[in-house]
C-alpha cells in the first residue's frame, strides 16, 4: 500500500516535471553558518549567469531552489536532496560545498534520474561515486600539483608540508609530495595540524627547525588563514628566506583585505583569480559583484557556480527539458567552452573539469586593493587525484 502510494507520488512528481515549462534546479550549499560566504558566492555565480543569459533555455524556464546545509552534514544534505527531488521535483541537483555532503547525495542520483553538478566539493573520488556527477570546480590535487613544479624551479630541493588534518588537507599533502618528488625534490617532513588550531607560532618554529627551504601549506579558506599568514611573517620565516607555497584557498579574494600587507608576495596556485584578465571574466565579475552586493565578498565558488549553470543549461538543451539524467550527462561529456577563468572542458571519462591552473602572487593595485596577480599559466590541467585514488 505504502509502496503504491510512494510510486504514485513519484509518478506525479516525475510526470509533472517532464511536461512543465519550469525546470527546477536544486542548489545545496552553506547559506548560513560560518561558511555562509561561500554559499553567497554560489548564489552570486548563479544569479550572474541568470542575469547575463536570462532564465530561459528554449521555452523552458529555470527556477533555482536553494537549500541550506550550514556545515558539513551529510545526513542533512541527503535529506534535503531527497526532499528537493521528491517534493520540489527538481531535475538537477547542484552546489555542494563540502565533500561529504556531495557524497551523501550521489547515492540518490540513479534512482531519482537526476544529474548532479558539483560546484565546489574538491575530493577527487566524488565523480567516481556515480556516473551522473559532473564537476565544474576543481580538486585539491589539481590545484596543488603545479605548485610543486614552481617550488622546484625556484630552487627548492627540500620542502616541508603543513596541512590541516582532514580530507582535503591530506589530499594536498599527498598531491604535493607526489609531484614534488617526481620533480626530484625531497619532502623532509609532513605535518598535519588540527583544523581547530588558532596559534601557529609553534608550528612555524618547527618548520624553521626542519631545515626546509620551502613551506607548502593547505588550509581551508576562512579565519585561520589570517593567523597562519601572520605567524609565517612574525616568526621570521619570511625573513629567513623560507619560501611560501600554497593553494588559492589561502588567499581567496574575500580574505585579502584582512590579510593585507602580510600576504604580499605569497605564491599560490589555483583555478581562478577574480582579477583574471579576459573579456569573459570582466563581464562575469561585473554581474557577480552586482549579485553579491559587496564586491569584496566575491570569491572562487562563484565561478564554479556560474560554469555549473552553463553546464546545466547545456544539459537542458540536450534533453529538450525532459528528465533524462544519463542523456543530460552524456551531452556535456567533452563539452568545452571559454569560462571566465579561461578555456575549460569536461573530461569525458571522469566528468571532471579540465582547466588552466594559474600561479598567482598577492599584489597591490594602484588603488591600494590587494589581489591575486596571475603570473604563470599551467594549461589544460586534469585531475591527477583520480589516478591516485584508483591506485
Amino acid at each position, binding site marked *: 500500500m505504502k509502496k503504491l502510494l510512494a510510486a504514485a507520488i513519484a509518478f506525479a512528481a516525475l510526470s509533472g516535471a517532464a511536461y512543465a515549462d519550469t525546470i527546477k534546479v536544486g542548489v545545496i550549499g552553506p547559506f548560513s553558518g560560518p561558511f555562509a560566504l561561500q554559499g553567497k558566492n554560489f548564489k552570486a555565480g548563479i544569479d550572474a549567469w541568470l542575469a547575463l543569459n536570462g532564465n530561459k533555455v528554449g521555452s523552458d524556464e529555470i527556477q533555482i531552489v536553494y537549500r541550506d546545509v550550514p556545515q558539513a552534514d551529510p545526513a542533512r544534505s541527503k535529506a534535503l536532496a531527497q526532499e528537493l527531488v521528491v517534493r520540489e521535483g527538481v531535475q538537477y541537483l547542484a552546489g555542494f560545498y563540502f565533500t561529504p555532503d556531495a557524497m551523501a547525495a550521489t547515492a540518490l542520483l540513479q534512482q531519482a534520474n537526476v544529474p548532479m553538478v558539483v560546484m565546489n566539493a574538491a575530493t577527487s573520488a566524488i565523480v567516481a561515486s556515480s556516473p551522473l556527477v559532473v564537476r565544474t570546480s576543481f580538486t585539491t590535487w589539481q590545484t596543488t600539483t603545479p605548485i610543486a613544479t614552481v617550488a622546484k624551479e625556484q630552487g627548492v630541493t627540500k620542502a616541508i608540508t603543513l596541512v590541516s588534518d582532514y580530507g582535503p588537507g591530506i589530499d594536498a599533502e599527498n598531491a604535493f609530495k607526489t609531484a614534488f618528488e617526481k620533480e626530484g625534490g625531497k619532502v623532509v617532513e609532513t605535518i598535519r595540524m588540527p583544523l581547530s588550531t588558532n596559534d601557529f607560532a609553534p608550528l612555524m618554529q*618547527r618548520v624553521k627547525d626542519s631545515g626546509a627551504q620551502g613551506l607548502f601549506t593547505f588550509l581551508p579558506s576562512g579565519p585561520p588563514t589570517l593567523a597562519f599568514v601572520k605567524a609565517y611573517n612574525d616568526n621570521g620565516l619570511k625573513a629567513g628566506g623560507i619560501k611560501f607555497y600554497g593553494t588559492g584557498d589561502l588567499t581567496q579574494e574575500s580574505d585579502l583585505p584582512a590579510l593585507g600587507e602580510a600576504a604580499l608576495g605569497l605564491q599560490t596556485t589555483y583555478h581562478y583569480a577574480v582579477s583574471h584578465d579576459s573579456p569573459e571574466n570582466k563581464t562575469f565579475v561585473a554581474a557577480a559583484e552586482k549579485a553579491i552586493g559587496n564586491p569584496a565578498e566575491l570569491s572562487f565558488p562563484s565561478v564554479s557556480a556560474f560554469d555549473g549553470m552553463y553546464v546545466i543549461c547545456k544539459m537542458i538543451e540536450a534533453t529538450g527539458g525532459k528528465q533524462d539524467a544519463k542523456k543530460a550527462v552524456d551531452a556535456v561529456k567533452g563539452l568545452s567552452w571559454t569560462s571566465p577563468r579561461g578555456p575549460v572542458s569536461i573530461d569525458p571519462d571522469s566528468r571532471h573539469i579540465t582547466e588552466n591552473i594559474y600561479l598567482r602572487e598577492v599584489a597591490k593595485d594602484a588603488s591600494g586593493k590587494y589581489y591575486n596577480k596571475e603570473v604563470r599559466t599551467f594549461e589544460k590541467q586534469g585531475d591527477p587525484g583520480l589516478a591516485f585514488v584508483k591506485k
Partner: protein
Amino acid sequence: MQTVLSIGVDALAYGMALFVISIGLSVTMGLMRVVNLAHGAFAMIGGYFASYAVRDLGLGYAAGILVAVVGTVVIAIPIERLLYRRIYGAPQLTQVLMTIGITFCVIGITNFAFGPTLKTVPLPPLLQGSVDLGFRSIAAHRIFVIICGFTVAAGLWFLVERTNFGVKVRATVDNAAMTAALGVRTEVVYAVSFAVAIALAAFGGVIGAELLPLEPYYALRYMVTFLVVVSVGGAGSIPGALIACLLLGTIDTTGRYLAPEYGEFFFYLAVILIVTLFPRGLAGRMK
C-alpha cells in the same frame, strides 16, 4: 634547551592571549554565577567597534580600544537590563539556552549588517613586525599581549582584593541576601561587575584579534576554548585563570610542537585529567 625556551615563549604568549580573552567570562561565571555562552559575542562586538574605529575612522589603536570598550558596554547595558537580569540564579540549563539565543542573534545581526568577511584591527607601527629575542624572533604584538595580560591580572586583583568595591563583590558572591541586608545595593554590584566583565571581553576581543580573527561566528567558534579555560582555572579566580591559561598554553603549544597531529588528543586528555583532579578548578574555592 633552545627548543624548551622556544616552546616556553610561545606558551607564554598564547596563554596570555587566552587569559586576556577569557578573564571576562571568569568574572561573569564566578561572581555572577551565569554560564555566559555569549561572552564571545561581546568580545566580537568589541573587535568590530575597534575595527570600525581604526580602519574606517582612522583613529589610533589606543583610541580604537577605548571605543571598543565603551561601545560594547553601552550595547550590553540594555541587554543586561532586559535579558541577563532574568537569569541570575536560574538553573544552568536556562542560562545556557538564553545565552546561546543571544549569541545566535548577535551572529545573525552581525552577518546581516557587516557581512561574513573577516575584520581586522590594523596595528600601530610599534606593534607590527617582530622582535629578535636572540634565539628566535617573536611578533611584537605578542609581547604587547603578554604585558596586557599581566596588567589586567594585576588590575583585577587590585580591584577585587584591595578596594571597597571589591569587598562588596566578594561579600555578594558569598551571600547575596546577607549582603543586601547589610545595606549594600547588590543590584548595583551586579551591574558594575557585568559591565567590567563586558569591558574585559571587548578588550580581549580587540587585543586577541591577531590570534582569533574577528568574524560573525567568533562567539561559537571559540566558545569551547573560553569555557575550558574558565573551568580549569576555577570560575571567578583571577590567579586561577592565569595559571590555567599558562598551563593550557604550555600543553597546547608543546603538543603542537612535538606532535601536531595528536594536538587535540593531548589538549583534551590534559583537560580531562586536570578537571578530574581539580573539579573546582585549579584555584576554585572549596565548599
